[in-house]
């Protein structure tokens, strides 16, 4: 047996955009075991419910994570709306869907860039982020913010997307689609990219199921799970199918996410085509009393929200379970037996969002 050595990885590491610490037990170049330790970003924002009322919490919830910020704000608001029995106007639901898909687009393009960076393809990284800036321009045009939108509130949304803005979004979608097709060619067909991704970090369907993986990570292992099929917001009225791949390796995960970029573009077009006229927010009266649990699909996978109110402005409890938390077990499984040089890729491949996980 080769000599074992333990290599600390992180929290500050060039490949890692976020602090997570892994203790890697190595045997020569192979990883035998990976022990994650977390807590570098723990803020304890769930406990802020004691100091902020339920309307203010919508903005705190958005800041759980800056990349999937819209989803968190939406998940929280929708949960509270269910407790209070508020009927959200149809237009608000469509607007939320459009913003949700825009945020998924920017998140997936961001991931594609980070992935390219992780396997050392700087140029591709920059190309992905160049395309992503166009999506951010759309978001800025409609909401005023670039990464934190702050357009959700309990009862609906606070801004509208005018017909001119819709046209600008559609134009951008054409551009993004055209550019992503070019990027896709490199990701899917380039020899050196394939050699870094094919067959690396394979997670079988059974393993993914047993470890409770979520989102694109699970879909790449052939599990057709997509919470959007539940039909919350306006998803019920739009056509969509979960995108899956059966490879279970890094290549498969890349394929799924790139497929989802096109899917999001399609969903935005559908939503803009069908958007009804009307109010954008319902009137909110009283305080939440009761509890509700709901599941939505974030760019990184399934996120669960639980809120319990007690009839006062301050909620009793707010709880979020994030997709990265579900995927960490799968990550540690794929790390076993991996080459040391592949660690960076494998960590990025689950699209980790540590600040969601630790809150």
């Amino acid at each position, binding site marked *: 047996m080769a000599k074992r050595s333990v290599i600390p990885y992180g*929290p*500050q*590491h*060039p*490949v890692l*955009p*976020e*602090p997570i610490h892994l203790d890697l037990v190595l045997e020569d170049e192979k990883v035998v075991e990976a022990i994650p330790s977390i*807590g*570098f*970003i*723990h*803020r*304890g*924002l769930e*406990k*802020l419910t004691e*100091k902020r009322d339920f309307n203010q919490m919508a*903005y*705190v919830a958005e*800041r*759980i*994570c*800056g*990349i999937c*910020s819209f989803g968190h704000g939406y998940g929280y608001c929708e949960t509270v709306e269910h407790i209070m029995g508020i009927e959200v106007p149809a237009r608000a639901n469509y607007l939320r869907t459009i913003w949700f898909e825009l945020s998924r687009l920017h998140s997936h393009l*961001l991931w594609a*860039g980070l992935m390219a960076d992780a396997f050392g393809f700087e140029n591709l*990284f*920059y190309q992905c*982020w*160049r395309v992503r*800036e166009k999506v*951010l321009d759309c978001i800025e045009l409609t909401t005023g*913010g*670039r*990464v*934190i939108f702050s357009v959700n509130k309990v009862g609906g949304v606070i801004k509208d997307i005018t017909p001119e803005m819709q046209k600008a979004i559609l134009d951008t979608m054409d551009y993004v689609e055209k550019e992503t097709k070019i990027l896709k060619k490199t990701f899917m067909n380039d020899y050196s990219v394939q050699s870094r991704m094919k067959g690396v970090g394979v997670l079988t369907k059974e393993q993914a199921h047993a470890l409770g993986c979520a989102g694109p990570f699970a879909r790449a292992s052939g599990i057709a799970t997509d919470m959007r099929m539940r039909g919350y917001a306006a998803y019920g009225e739009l056509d969509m199918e979960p995108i899956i791949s059966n490879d279970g390796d890094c290549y498969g995960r890349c394929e799924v996410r790139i497929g989802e970029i096109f899917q999001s573009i399609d969903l935005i077009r559908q939503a803009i085509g069908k958007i009804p006229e009307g109010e954008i927010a319902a009137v909110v009266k009283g305080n939440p009393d009761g509890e509700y649990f709901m599941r939505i699909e974030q760019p990184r996978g399934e996120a669960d929200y639980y809120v319990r109110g007690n009839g006062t402005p301050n909620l009793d409890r707010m709880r979020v379970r994030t997709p990265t938390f579900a995927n960490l077990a799968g990550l540690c499984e794929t790390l076993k037996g991996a080459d040391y040089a592949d660690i960076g890729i494998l960590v990025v491949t689950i699209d980790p*969002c540590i*600040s969601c996980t*630790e809150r």
Partner: protein
Amino acid sequence: MYKITRSPWVMHYDGSSCNGCDIEVLACLTPVYDAERFGIINTGDPMQADILLITGSINTQNAPVVKQIYSQMSDPKVVVAVGVCACTGGVFKDCYNILGGADQVIPVDVYVPGCAARPQAIIDGIVKGIGVFQERLEKLENGTLKQEEKEDTEEKKEED
């Protein structure tokens, strides 16, 4: 007078930020804002970095990490706090695990406000940081930097 003749290299550490400011820091360096065309490179190695960009507030777990990264940087060094979280604690100020802004553990030179801080503001902060860097460099040349730091720490001790 000694002039800076090369571009500063920045290092970015994510305190307990929500990622919003992180991705904006990266957006500064990638196309559209593209500070890299001036040679400003995001390095992962504290020993090669001139400017430390810190996002997010300080909590009990990452305080020693931030201190260690700061002490590994060679003189002269500048710290830029990006986003209200790094300035004061921001929205998370009242959370039980938050000690406050980055200045709780290391000296901060430039504060960039915003939630999330916009790339324009971050670049502005870096440019201000270069000014501070220039001053420090001159002091380092004529040997007054260390003295000043000593005075700083003495003052701090008195305050404590």
